[in-house]
């Protein structure tokens, strides 16, 4: 049984989340992950980062990382490498694209294997998608209009049934 908080995200060790860099203080960044506390991210926690070779992280950048330490007594710590030292898809999320906030239940639905919503959307336009367990989704398609269409569909997927979704997508691909 996994308790599902619908509103506030609670950091869990191992969860992959999208964070926004808020403070850059010397060796450590503070990242807003939507929890009660901001997570700390060391500049060495990126693939190939050394004291000479620092990652190019600015305030306001989006980071896809996982929690190394996350409990109710301490400040959460994030890293962008796995236990082998490889980035494995994590790191700074590139320019452009669109970030939205959805409920945690929708994220779990989207992360299920062979999710219908993702399959239907990929028939529509090609796009890049990053799902954070903290309820944040980052989307990037070829044009701004396509990106916004996908964002609207994802946001309304919380309330639409499968038939309504297929109707909406059929209308769009008809255009």
């Amino acid at each position, binding site marked *: 049984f996994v308790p599902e908080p619908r509103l506030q995200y609670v950091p869990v060790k191992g969860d992959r989340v999208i964070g926004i860099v808020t403070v850059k203080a010397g060796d450590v960044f503070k990242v807003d992950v939507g929890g009660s506390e901001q997570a700390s991210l060391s500049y060495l926690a990126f693939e190939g980062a050394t004291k000479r070779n620092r990652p190019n992280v600015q305030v306001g950048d989006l980071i896809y990382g996982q929690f190394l*330490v996350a*409990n109710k*007594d*301490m*400040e959460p*710590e994030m890293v962008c490498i796995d236990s082998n030292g490889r980035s494995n898809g994590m790191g700074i999320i590139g320019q452009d694209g669109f970030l939205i906030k959805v409920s945690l239940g929708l994220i779990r639905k989207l992360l299920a294997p062979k999710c219908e919503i993702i399959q239907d959307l990929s028939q529509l336009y090609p796009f890049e998608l990053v799902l954070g367990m903290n309820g944040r989704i980052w989307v990037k398609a070829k044009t701004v209009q396509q990106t916004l269409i996908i964002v609207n569909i994802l946001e309304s997927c919380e309330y639409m049934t499968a038939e309504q979704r297929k109707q909406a997508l059929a209308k769009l691909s008809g255009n």
Partner: protein
Amino acid sequence: LSARPVGERLCSVEEATAGSGTYTRHGFIFSSLAGCLEKRSEDSGLPIVSVVRDTESQLLPNVGAVVTCKVCSINSRFAKVHILYVGSTPLKSTFRGTIRREDIRATEKDKVEVYKSFRPGDIVLAKVISLGDAQSNYLLSTAENELGVVVAHSEAGAQMVPISWCEMQCPQTHSKDFRKVARVQPQFLQT
């Protein structure tokens, strides 16, 4: 017993001996505290003159004193505590102390995890290793067998029972938690 200001000349050295809260200069006894004058007569020799504050003097932890403290917050580098007792005397106002990560254990200092040694709310026996600067807290250490966590509560709320020097178990849920447990001398244990 009237209130005396600081620096008042009390009497000459021939009449009395300087006690606590006083000092001698140029053959006279002056008070160094603001408080009440106390004259105690000794059978042998001169009476002792001392100045006491209205409130009882606070017992301060010295370097090397064993103190009882309560953990208030933890960090990956240190744990912040409130010092409650010095030896067996309770303090009226709590002092703040810090237990650094390298002072938690005597062996394998770099493998220590503060989260696996202390949690907020634990009662810990520690030893003062430094008084600290003006602004910083007392520096404490638990790097001995007799020092460490004595009372800890589990997530369920029950008081946990120590199993080994690094583990404690909740009697209700039987779940084990990691702590740096103190090996209290048998004569101090109450059953």
